[in-house]
């Protein structure tokens, strides 16, 4: 099962490597990991996507909680939640037809063109990971020059919040 674990962690040097080190030392896999400070600069919010059986996920959350720098965590996939990922994708766009086609695609996927040159378009798309995958699928592979994905971030729906 795929799980999205949200972590509030002390914003200190080395905190990220403690999490990453834990995963490699114990043989857990990380699909993606994003981290940035919160509105309280002393705290970072990390979103970690991993896969494993219920037993493994239980161990992962316990081991994460055991890290001294971890203040609190939540498995978002246990309740209703929203996940988003951002992608910046640079595409070859030369000539009227090709430029129109890329623009149309971007519109269909609610993407925004954020940089334009004579030969390229750079598009920003957000959504859950499957939407970003679908966008890539829908494009002509030979047009893709570069893709940058942020990794998943997530938040619970409604009143439920991960805060101290």
């Amino acid at each position, binding site marked *: 099962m795929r799980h999205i674990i949200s972590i509030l962690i002390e914003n200190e*040097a080395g905190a990220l490597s403690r999490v990453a080190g834990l995963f490699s030392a114990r043989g857990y896999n990380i699909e993606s990991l994003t981290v940035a400070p919160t509105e309280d600069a002393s705290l970072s919010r990390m979103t970690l996507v991993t896969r494993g059986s219920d037993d493994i996920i239980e161990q992962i959350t316990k081991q994460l909680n*055991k890290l001294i*720098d971890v203040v609190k965590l939540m498995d978002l996939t246990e309740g209703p939640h929203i996940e988003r990922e951002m992608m910046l994708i640079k595409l070859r766009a030369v000539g009227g037809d090709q430029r129109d086609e890329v623009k149309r695609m971007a519109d269909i996927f609610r993407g925004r063109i954020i940089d334009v040159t004579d030969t390229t378009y750079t598009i920003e798309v957000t959504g859950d990971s499957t939407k970003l995958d679908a966008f890539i699928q829908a494009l002509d592979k030979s047009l893709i020059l570069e893709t940058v994905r942020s990794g998943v971030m997530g938040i619970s729906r409604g009143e439920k919040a991960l805060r101290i």
Partner: protein
Amino acid sequence: MELTGAEIVVRFLHDEGVEHLFGYPGGAVLHIYDALYRQDKVKHILVRHEQAATHAADGYARSTGKPGVVLVTSGPGATNAVTGIATAYMDSIPMVVLTGQVPTSLIGNDAFQEVDAVGITRPCVKHNFLVKDVKDLAITLKKAFYIAQTGRPGPVVVDIPKDVTANRTKYVFPKTVSMRSYNPVVKGHTGQIKRAVGMILGAKRPMLYTGGGVVLNDASRQLVEFARLLGYPVTNTSMGLGGYPASDKQFVGMLGMHGTYEANMAMSHCDVLVAIGARFDDRVTGNVQKFCPHAKIIHIDIDPSSISKNVKVDVPIVGSVEHVLKDMLKLIKDSGEVPDGEALAKWWTQIDEWRAKECLKYDKSSELIKPQYVLETLHKITKGDAFVCSDVGQHQMWTAQFYRFDKPRRWINSGGLGTMGFGLPAAMGVQFAHPKASVVCVTGEGSIQMNIQELSTCLQYGLPIKIICLNNRFLGMVRQWQEFFYDKRYSHSYMESLPDFVKLAEAYGHVGMQIDKPADVEAALKEAFTKHKNRLVFMNFLTDQTENVYPMVPAGAGLDEMILV
């Protein structure tokens, strides 16, 4: 008044109540050593290798419950300490290790004697810190001591760059510390405790399986009261030995790979298992698929991540052993309920049948010295009251089996990491903590050579440790596995060109003795503990080379599939 970082370190240690500091100087910690020189409150013990400093601090901590404290320099000082830090980590021993670091301006420049100590130690510490500002020094040290000793204890490393020890700031001892990210639970969940008590009282074939948590938490008294009130059998893990008196009739011995037949059979047939401060290590469970097949399992542990890690449990209780046992005792007494006496009597009859196998028997008429006999005699001569530190291998298992520990914190061994070379330095730490006590290091000719340089430290400080070297001219445990599982291909398990240990001991200024006949064992031990009471005695026992540790559960087998003698 403003103090330098070095002075703050030393003042802090004194204010924190640290009496002994085990260490080795070097460039990055010279300011701290200078501050140590200019005071007489914290006693520094100079070892001969940083690994020994960590093991000595570890032995100190295991035998007292107080944190062991280590000071080493940057680079090789820190890397040499790593084995000792990992040893303490695996056995949850409270320890604070101060490592010197190159000046902050040089960090990352591949400076002389620079290593990323925080990075290297990260996987084998409870937590670690790099102090970048002298203003953070005192509070960081306070956090280190707090983290090391609370919850599930463990080692904490504080890496201190040289310029931080030179810079000045105002020093106030931080009396308390609180951390929003670290609040260990000690009190167990009431509902879970109630459920567990119901299950315990309803058991027909109960078993108490207790580990190092009982010793670390100083909860022996509660355990004994709990076990006696119920009349249930008790088995200890290697780390838990002494947590329940071995001479008590309810004690069925150690369990696991080299546990007793009765303990392992009782585990395999019990219907309710109460795991108390034990972590279902693979050396204890054998094949987990075959582990306690008939039992409902209750698990009391301070560390939530120990619960349901290896074996799925039915009633998890997170909390300190002491608190949870107290709560359970109160509930049981208040309920007025008692265990099923008839079922229990039947269960004990069964256990006594297993006991009758006498799984620890050995050939007492042999003309060669049997290691088991040396340990039985050691127990007799020391009246079972010595602090016994052990190295790792066959001699460790024999000591666990034959030196029947009645008190906690007397059995000092590297259980989790299995660190050869642990015994002698650990014994030094124990002797510093208990200057008047009999301190023994049981070792083998393999293990002792891994930290033999510490004989020099022992001379410097006049430590009257008794070294019992069970010398079989083999890396015995390796040889045993090769005999059983590798068709007797003794690949590199034979120790050629051994030193003359008697002369070696004498060269270091100690007493050396060689014993090669069973008839001389008792007299030699007596002599060591009386005539040479105040000196270190290295006793080289030439033992039977073919002796193996029995019983044995082969790797991957169930606990009821033991090889008996």
